[in-house]
Structure formats: C-alpha cells, structure tokens
C-alpha cells in the first residue's frame, strides 16, 4: 500500500507531525545558489516569486533535491526538473548549485553566520 501513498491507517495523518524537535542533532537546509554573467556566485534568500510563495519554493526545492540525489535510473529527468525549477526562480543565471547548509540551531542564535556549506547538486 505504501507505494500508493495509502500507508497510513487514518487518512488525515499529520497527527504525528513534529514528533521530535526538528534540528536537535543538527539542522540541514537546502539553498539555491546562482552564478551571474560575470561568474560570481550568489546565495538566494527565499523571496516570493509570481507563481511560488516562500513555502512553495522551500518544499519544492527539498523534494527535487532528494529526487535528484537518490540513486535511480531517473536521475537525468530529476536533474532536468530541478534545473527547470531553478530557472523559474532565478531566470537569467549561468549556472546553479544547490547547497546544503548545516548548523547547530542554538549556535546560530549566537552568530547567524555559523553554518557549514556543502554543494549537493551542480547544474550548468
């Protein structure tokens, strides 16, 4: 049943949402970086676009990155989807990177720049 999405006994299944505090053993957030015509890289902070709210972008980026990094025969198709999405968000860029920002949340409260970055996907 799980592959059909009917794995939950009760259809309104978000009753066990936030079962544990999110990010207690280190948080991980995906961020879109883009390269301008001069070759400089920019970190894109989520801002609403005409067809995507901030939340839409956050969920879509996360799910597309997960699909792209999963080891399946469809990786090329998923990369194409991710690229399409990146172009929707930042249309005139030379290249894109999806960067995972990892941090300890309480440290971030002391200094908002205390996070590590790892490039997860690179798209030309």
């Amino acid at each position, binding site marked *: 049943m799980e592959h059909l999405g009917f794995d939950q006994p009760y259809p309104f299944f978000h009753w066990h949402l936030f*079962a*544990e505090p999110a990010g*207690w053993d280190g*948080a991980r957030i995906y961020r879109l970086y883009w390269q301008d015509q001069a070759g400089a890289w920019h970190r894109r902070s989520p801002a609403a676009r005409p067809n995507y709210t901030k939340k839409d972008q956050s969920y879509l980026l*996360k799910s597309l990155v997960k699909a792209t990094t999963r080891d399946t025969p469809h990786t090329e198709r998923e990369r194409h989807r991710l690229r399409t999405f990146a172009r929707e968000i930042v249309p005139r860029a030379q290249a894109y990177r999806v960067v995972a920002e990892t941090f300890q*949340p309480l440290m971030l409260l002391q200094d908002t720049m205390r996070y590590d970055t790892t490039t997860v996907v690179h798209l030309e």
Partner: protein
Amino acid sequence: MIRRLWSTLNSKRLAALLRGEPADERVRRSATGCRNRNLRVAWSGYVADRGLLVLTVLWLGWRLKRHAMIAARPDVLYEPGVGLARLVFPSFPSAPVYYGLFALTAVALLVCFLRPRLVAARAVLAVGVVLIILPEFGYGKVEHINHLFLAAHVYAVFLPVRRPARSNSDLAAQAEATHWYQAGLLFIYTMAGLWKFFDLTIRYAVKGGMTWLNPDAMVITSITSLRGYDFPLIIPRYVAAIKEVIPLGYVMLAFLFAAAFLAAFRRPYLLIVLPAIAAFHLMNIVVLYVLFASTIAVALVLFLPYDRFVPAIQRQLDPFRHTRFRGRGAQAQYRRRYANGDEDVFRGFYAYREHLRDRSWLMAAPLYYPGLAWITTRVLRRWDFARAPAASE
C-alpha cells in the same frame, strides 16, 4: 469478554461513559431537560454546518487564486504526491477538467445551502473539495493545513443536517449525529495527544535523542524552521526567554488533546479544547511559520458552542423556573425545575458540576475531564464518612 464489550458499545453505558454522566439515580434528566440538551446540540451543529458552507465559498475563491498560480508552472514540475492524486490526476489536470470540477462543486455547494440534507449534493461537495486540492499536492508537499476542512466535508455527508424544531421527532437522532460528527473531527487531536505520550515513552525507552520535555526543544525547532526562510531570529529569542514553561505547556496540551474527542459529548469541555486548539495553531504560525490560519477559522466555526450566545437558539429552549441546591458532599442535591413542571435531579459530584454549569460553562469545564468524576465521587464519599462520626458526637 467480547459479549461484554459489545453490550457496552450498544448500551446506555457507552453514552454514559462518553457524556461523563452515570446511567443511575445520580443523574435524572426529565424529558424537558433532554429536549433542551438535544436542541442545544442540534442547533449548534446546524449553525456550524451553515458556517462551514460559508467558509467553503471563501475556500473555493482562495483555491481559484492558488490554481492560477500552480497552472502557470511548467508541467514537468508536477508529480502527484499522494495515492489518490496519482489515481485521479497522474498528470496536471487540463483547464476544462479542473474548472468543470470546480463548477460542479460550486453548484453542489449552492444546493447544500438550499437543501442541506440532500446526501447526493453533500457527497459531490465532499468529493469535489478533496479533488480540487489534489493538484496542490503535486509540488513536493502534502499540505496538512486543510485537513480539518476536508475531513469536515467528508464526515458531513453522514450528518443529517436540518433546521431543528422543538417538535422534531428525530431531534435526538440529529443531536446524536452531531455529537459523533464533532467527535470524529476532534479525534484527530485525540490521536495527536495520545501519540505524544506514546512517542515520548518510545524515545525514553528505545530511541534516545531530544524530546519536547527539553526546554531548548521549541527554541531549536523554531530556529530550524524560520532559518529555512531566512527570517531574522527574533521569535526564537523570545521563545528562549520563556523556554522553561514550554515543557509544562507541552504536557498540558498533550493531556488536553488526548481527551479532545470527548468535548463533543461533554460540551463545556469545548471551552477548554477550542482555545487550546486555536492557541496551538497560532503558536505554530508565529513560532514555526506553519500557516494554520484556515485551520483556526474552521475549528472556530465548527466547534463554537453557539447555543451559549445566540439568543435565537436560547429562545427555543424551555426555560427553567427555579433551581435548588441542598446538602453537602456525596449527599449534595441539585434540582432544576422547568416552567412545565418537569424536574432534573443531580446528586453528589454531579450536583456540584451541574450547579456550576448553570452559572458558568467555563468554570464547570475542567470538571468534565475524564476520570475527574470518578476520583471526586470517591473523595466526597470519604469526606462524608469522615464527617459522619464527628456529627454524631
């Protein structure tokens, strides 16, 4: 054992268990008392259902706006996220299909306004709203924000909604259906509450890691959530300032939610559960940026006890001429006499609770928490027993 369970399910004992009132001489409601109670429930259910239909008009308007946004996205981005969406809309629905469905749902909604009891219209409306939201689930998220709204429509198919009248022969059935309708919806919160106990136990015993009893838990979750949108971390700083009270709030909420479905039968308890639901979702909006505004609106519309403040409903009820409270402890007795001569009688703990309820639902509300009647009744008996020898000296 099975026979006993079955007889409990079928008997007055289940009703007594759910209502928190014993089916013995301690609570004797007259026919007028029962009719008043049924009228209150049936009217509240009726007004709530009308309110739900009005909210649905706004919801459909909002969906139109959202769908225009979604439809403008490249088709390749759409990938149905739930089983039902994979079955119904494996690829993004074309405009005629989607707006046709939309029009059909709008017509069903209009019919429901005029003929609320027409099951076919209710069913089309319920299926319609579920299908209308499905394309939204094709972009990496399965939104939980609309679930109370969708569940309300699905359950409403089985709700015999009609304008209650004092002479309705099926008034009791309508009140009973309203009880179960609300209980079904509130059961979501009961599961959430019970899950918290279950989950905490597992975490302590097996899994390990941080639990919500750690004062830092909410601060950390708030930072993780808000950072995703690059919001300034002002709110987490406020949360950090009051972090010691958060585990207490968590435990309180788990206890309140675990009994949430009983509020459908023990209506004063709604005055605790409803603000708790609203506050919980409001906290999620502010602290975690989970935008539950529509859930709060749906919960308020569905569960507000309209009979407490709508004069038109109160005019339908048989007024009582006078009430009398006598005695103390287990011997306490509360009588409520109606203008037509009927009389309700409550004894012991139930005399105190009903007396308080007639004065203020809010004050009486905590007394409807499950188990409290059982404990208090025993305490009152002990108290009487302890007092008895002293009185004879």
